[in-house]
């Protein structure tokens, strides 16, 4: 089996999966509940989620481990089970992965800031990510997707944790906001700077996810492409959430996003998928539009 990087480098466009949180909420996760706890208590749901995304045509599926760092799991009382929770997350997706598809270990922000902006030292942050990476690697992931990061320093520590603990490829994507002078991370880096920073930190694939609607993601991808030749992955939200009566709805439809994905790919993305608010229906629409 060739790994997903070889296929991207050979020029193939890959489709990734859609939202995890949105799916789990539709299958019993309480608002604000711990998604990673489902790896322990609801393995059936976690496996079905991966299976649904593979069935929709996703080449890559991310594990249910976005909040799987010790800092986040501790908040829910699972701080001493980091390796186990992450290993299970990987095993659940692996168990339903067809032979020619891939499982990426999802890693999200720790939710605490590094010194001097917050209380955590670089060594503590690095060690926390190493534990999560080990769990995911033990569970059999093909690579990692470190996502929704807003601080390049924290991202660099997570990338290093992957590189020093495994020999697997790593995708690194950050979240941007739009201000009066353009796109910036919370810490003030522009997409082009982020692209260079991620490459320096050792990422094999760079990109952006979450945050802004798809029209903005086109511009972010273009800016990152202008600064780097590395493959680019983009996971896009189904628009900005709105309230309709008592429900939270994401306004962008699968068809609308699939059409817009032409522009994301045109701007230089090599792997595309969904973030908050997307579902297997979105992935099916992306596959139909971009692959068939």
């Amino acid at each position: 089996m060739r790994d997903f990087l070889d296929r991207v480098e050979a020029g193939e466009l890959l489709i990734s999966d859609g939202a995890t949180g949105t799916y789990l909420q539709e299958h019993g996760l309480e608002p604000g509940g711990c998604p990673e706890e489902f790896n322990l208590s609801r393995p059936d749901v976690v496996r079905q989620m991966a299976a649904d995304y593979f069935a929709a045509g996703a080449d890559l599926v991310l594990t249910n481990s976005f909040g799987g760092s010790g800092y986040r799991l501790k908040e829910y009382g699972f701080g001493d089970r980091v390796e186990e929770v992450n290993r299970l997350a990987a095993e659940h997706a692996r168990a339903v992965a067809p032979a020619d598809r891939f499982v990426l270990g999802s890693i999200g922000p720790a939710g605490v800031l590094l010194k001097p902006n917050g209380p955590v030292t670089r060594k503590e942050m690095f060690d926390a990510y190493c534990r999560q990476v080990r769990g995911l690697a033990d569970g059999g992931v093909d690579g990692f997707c470190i996502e929704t990061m807003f601080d390049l320093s924290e991202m660099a520590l997570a990338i290093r944790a992957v590189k020093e603990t495994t020999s697997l490829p790593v995708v690194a994507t950050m979240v941007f906001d739009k201000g009066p002078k353009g796109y910036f991370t919370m810490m003030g880096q522009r997409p082009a700077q982020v692209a260079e920073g991620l490459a320096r930190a050792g990422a094999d694939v760079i990109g952006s996810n979450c945050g802004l609607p798809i029209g903005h993601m086109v511009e972010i991808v273009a800016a990152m492409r202008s600064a780097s030749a590395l493959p680019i992955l983009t996971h896009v939200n189904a628009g900005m959430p709105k309230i309709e009566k008592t429900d939270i709805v994401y306004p962008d439809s699968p068809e609308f996003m699939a059409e817009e994905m032409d522009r994301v790919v045109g701007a230089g993305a090599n792997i595309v998928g969904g973030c908050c608010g997307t579902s297997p229906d979105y992935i099916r629409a992306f596959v139909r539009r971009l692959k068939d």
Partner: protein
Amino acid sequence: MAELGDVENEFLCNELEQYVEEEVEKQRMVDLYAAISLSMQAIAAAIIDGRHHDVDRMTREALDKDVQALEVMDDGLIAGMALVGIKFRDNFIFVPEVLACARAMKAGMAHIEPILSASGIDPVGKVIMGTVKGDLHDIGKNLCIMMLRGSGFQVIDLGVDTSPDDFIGAVEEHGANLVGMSALLTTTMPNMGRTIEAFIDADLRDDVKFMVGGAPVTEEFAEELGADAYGADAVECVEVAKRLTAESASVHP
């Protein structure tokens, strides 16, 4: 109307020239800085530059020379933060720089607060802050609290996963009339609305103003759920808190 040359502190002059782009705003800032004493200009400059040791020392020196605590707060610390807010809003500085300024502000407030409370001067306002029920994310809320405290607000921090009853209890215990709610998760955003409903049920809605924020929260969303105001970031949070405090003061004199 003052002119840029009337601002004697060179650092402040340069900052105004480089970072305040809009003419009316620039004039307002020039007037503000030209009207304060040289020692207060130096404190404002140290705030903007994030030099907390200098703010600590200069605040102490000013108080030793019998400058009124309120004057140091308004003309030194808060005047400095005004420019920090403009630079942040216009993408010249970002969260790390604002945090450095907030630390400098905190160093000054540490000397001023005890004097104000000992002399019975009320804080700028009193705010109850919490991340809503079910949500454990607090980076944004903590940034807001730092900025609020730096601006002279008394903040009661209820932490994360705050139930409507906890908000109600804190409002009653502390006699606050401003509540700030934060959420990072789309799924917990509706708990902002549920908290407001709980205040309505407890017949307390008219006593408090609500401000809300968090990554997925929008102005539109805030309006839908019946909040009084939305703040996009920690700097806006302070502006909103000042506005709501002034509004409720005019309703409850």
